[in-house]
């Protein structure tokens, strides 16, 4: 017993040193090898007060301009764990492509410097643990002083990280995730903008469509996460209002097991016209596979997030691909017919990732088993717009503060007051930090001949709806 106590003082001292060493290592701007000597006053300052929070706008011409040799891009993204799928397939491939191409071209043009500055990208993993997300997010905000702050992964993470970004005066465009509550939330956090379509515009679009084709009853399986509760919470009263009967509903667990056959049995038993699956792909794919196996073929089958994935047909039908998805609905909606910009972006994205060897198809259209990236006909237009907005804001209003950091407040001002030319809309403009319905290329879509056609009941529609849904193909 005595022996331990003698070593105690030593150990405590060592431990304290270790804490300092390790946290100091985060404080010093990381050990990223490709950071070409971060601005001198950035590394040593470790200031107590965040620079941008003070809101001092500094005009161009400070001495930091000459030394700015990299724009620091930082983010906390889920490389492992339950949310890794989004980093791999949603916003992840967009910002990686964007930054890679900018750097190949000499960097991103910054207005006040009147030259291109290379981007230094470094992304931390949070292991899909929200406690870790917020901790590392704050670390980035305080210690790394990024010029561009990338958004975190899920709706939940967005809720948690938005006030942190606001606290330190950062400018941020949200990627994955969106919710009705976000609207009022952004009032308190005016530096954060959101571009992804969500229940506010999508549910009314679906309800309109349901009225158009004359659905009389629905059954819903919704994920027990924010997404499912919000969408079903919005859909249920809207449907009841126009006299559509709710034949049944059930929640599906986000984590842990469930049996797709049981859900399909219940839906079948209810005899509803329309079957709504408001779940993520991890649940939506098993449920769809059960529907196929049990020959459950409702007049309308709506598959939530994931229903718009280009790879969904491949996952469910193998070689048959999206032809098997004929008639299935999904949220969001854009395709190469939506606009010229959309077509250009879609081809560009596909070719880029095919070249990298990480696309789920090869150049000749055959499946590439090693490819993890695929197109998403809901989110991708929005996610790429995030990159475009960052870029155009910096190109038009990028200016350095005394600390050599991009002035975040100026970017916020610019974004509030100006239009952006993006994939989503060539005249994209924020209203109260979110987008209104007319900014989107579509809110609801349907698979027809392997194309995800926009089905909104207005001029965004790209094809006539197929209703009722044809039978699942027999392999």
């Amino acid at each position: 017993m005595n022996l331990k106590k003698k070593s105690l003082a030593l150990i405590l001292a060592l431990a304290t040193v270790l804490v300092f060493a390790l946290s100091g290592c985060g404080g010093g701007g990381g050990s990223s090898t490709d950071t070409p000597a971060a601005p001198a006053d950035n590394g040593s300052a470790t200031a107590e007060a965040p620079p941008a929070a003070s809101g001092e706008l500094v005009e161009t011409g400070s001495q930091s301009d000459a030394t700015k040799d990299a724009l620091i891009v930082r983010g906390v993204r889920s490389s492992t764990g339950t949310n890794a799928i989004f980093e791999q397939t949603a916003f992840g491939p967009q910002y990686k492509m964007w930054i890679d191409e900018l750097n190949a071209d000499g960097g991103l043009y910054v207005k006040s410097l009147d030259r291109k500055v290379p981007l230094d990208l470094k992304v931390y993993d949070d292991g899909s643990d929200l406690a870790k997300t917020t901790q590392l997010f704050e670390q980035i905000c305080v210690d790394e002083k990024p010029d561009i702050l990338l958004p975190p992964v899920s709706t939940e993470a967005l809720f948690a990280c938005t006030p942190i970004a606001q606290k330190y005066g950062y400018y941020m465009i949200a990627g994955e995730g969106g919710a009705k509550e976000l609207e009022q939330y952004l009032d308190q956090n005016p530096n954060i903008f959101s571009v992804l379509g969500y229940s506010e515009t999508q549910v009314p679009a679906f309800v309109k469509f349901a009225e158009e084709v004359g659905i009389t009853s629905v059954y819903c399986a919704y994920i027990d996460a924010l997404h499912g509760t919000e969408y079903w919470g919005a859909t249920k009263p809207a449907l009841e209002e126009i006299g559509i009967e709710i034949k049944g509903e059930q929640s599906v667990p986000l984590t842990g097991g469930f049996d797709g056959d049981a859900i399909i049995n219940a839906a079948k038993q209810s005899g509803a016209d329309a079957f709504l699956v408001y779940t993520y792909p991890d649940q939506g794919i098993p449920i769809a596979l059960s529907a196929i196996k049990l020959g459950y073929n409702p007049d309308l089958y709506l598959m939530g997030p994931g229903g718009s994935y280009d790879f969904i047909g491949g996952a469910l039908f193998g070689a048959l691909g999206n032809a098997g998805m004929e008639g299935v609905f999904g949220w969001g909606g854009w395709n190469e017919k939506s606009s010229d910009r959309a077509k250009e972006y879609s081809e560009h994205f596909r070719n880029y990732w095919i070249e990298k060897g990480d696309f789920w198809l090869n150049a000749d259209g055959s499946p590439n088993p090693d490819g993890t990236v695929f197109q998403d006909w809901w989110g991708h237009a929005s996610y790429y717009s995030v990159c475009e907005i960052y870029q155009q804001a910096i190109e038009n209003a990028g200016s350095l503060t005394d600390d050599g950091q991009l002035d975040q407040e100026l970017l916020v001002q610019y974004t509030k007051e100006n239009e952006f030319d993006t994939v989503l809309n060539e005249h994209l403009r924020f209203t109260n930090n979110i987008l209104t319905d007319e900014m989107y290329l579509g809110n609801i879509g349907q698979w027809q001949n392997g194309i995800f056609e926009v089905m909104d009941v207005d001029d965004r529609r790209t094809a006539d709806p197929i209703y009722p849904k044809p039978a699942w193909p027999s392999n």
Partner: protein
Amino acid sequence: MELLKRSFFGGKAAKIQFFAIIIAIVVLFFVPNFGSAYLPLFLAWVITYAVMSLAWTLFSGKTGYVSLASAAFYGTGMYVQAALGSNLPIVVSMIIAAAASFGVAFGIGLVTLRLRGVYFTIFTFGLSLFLNKFIHWYEVKFFHTKGHMVLAYDNLTVYYCVLVVFAIFLLVVIPMNKSRFGLALDCIGQNEDSAQHVGVNTTMTKVLAFAVSAAPVGAVGAAMATTIGYVDPDIAFKLLASFMPVLMAIFGGTHSVYGPIVGAIVFYSLQDYLLRELPGAYMIIFGCVMVAVILLMPKGIFGVIDTIIARRKRGFDGEVIGDV
């Protein structure tokens, strides 16, 4: 009083220990004045895990009942904060969270009296999962919502809150280990039946120790919920909150108060470093470290140090050092 004297001033070693603790806490109190504004947040998380790890050692390390209920207490604290945080000052909600966790643990203790060994472990494991899933289902089914926003506090306040919990806990645990109560727990760990024969009220001792160890975990959970800003069952009752304290304690060594603290510091820093520098591969390396720790240091860092020191003293004729 006699006990306090014996614990902190009885003999040279105890004095060194007492002053070391006081110095450490004073240092920790002033640390946020140096370094970046992020440092308090990081240290608050380290202290949180130190408290959880210490709490685990207090009960499981002594009695040998391996508990995986840390997540249940931590989550209870978080939910108390989510429910009361916007109306009450953080100190009050932390006290309520501690009381709630104490109550939960006391209840579990009473119903699990018959369980021994791995059955107790599975029960506590199942309890954390059950609370997660059930609250999840209940919120979604009946309120059509999931999770709650939590009112944020600045990092410094949170840091001092958890530091105070840590200090109080430390100053309670050390005398407790020396007391009759601590000895009774040790007896239970060595042989529960004989402990009963020599007149230890094993039931009451176990339940009380379990509940006492749960209270600070609830308190730090409540404090840390404010730094996350959003709490849902998957965040509050996360599985890692059950496993990490155990790993940290084993890594540091469960035979002293300092083992779990050092384990928490090293493990949390390591995890943090890996997530930042090796995203996507952190689990592999972390897994390897876990395995290596168990293989190479079954008695923890302190066990290793003891062995080295003992070997030096005894020369090389030394026997293997037994448990202290």
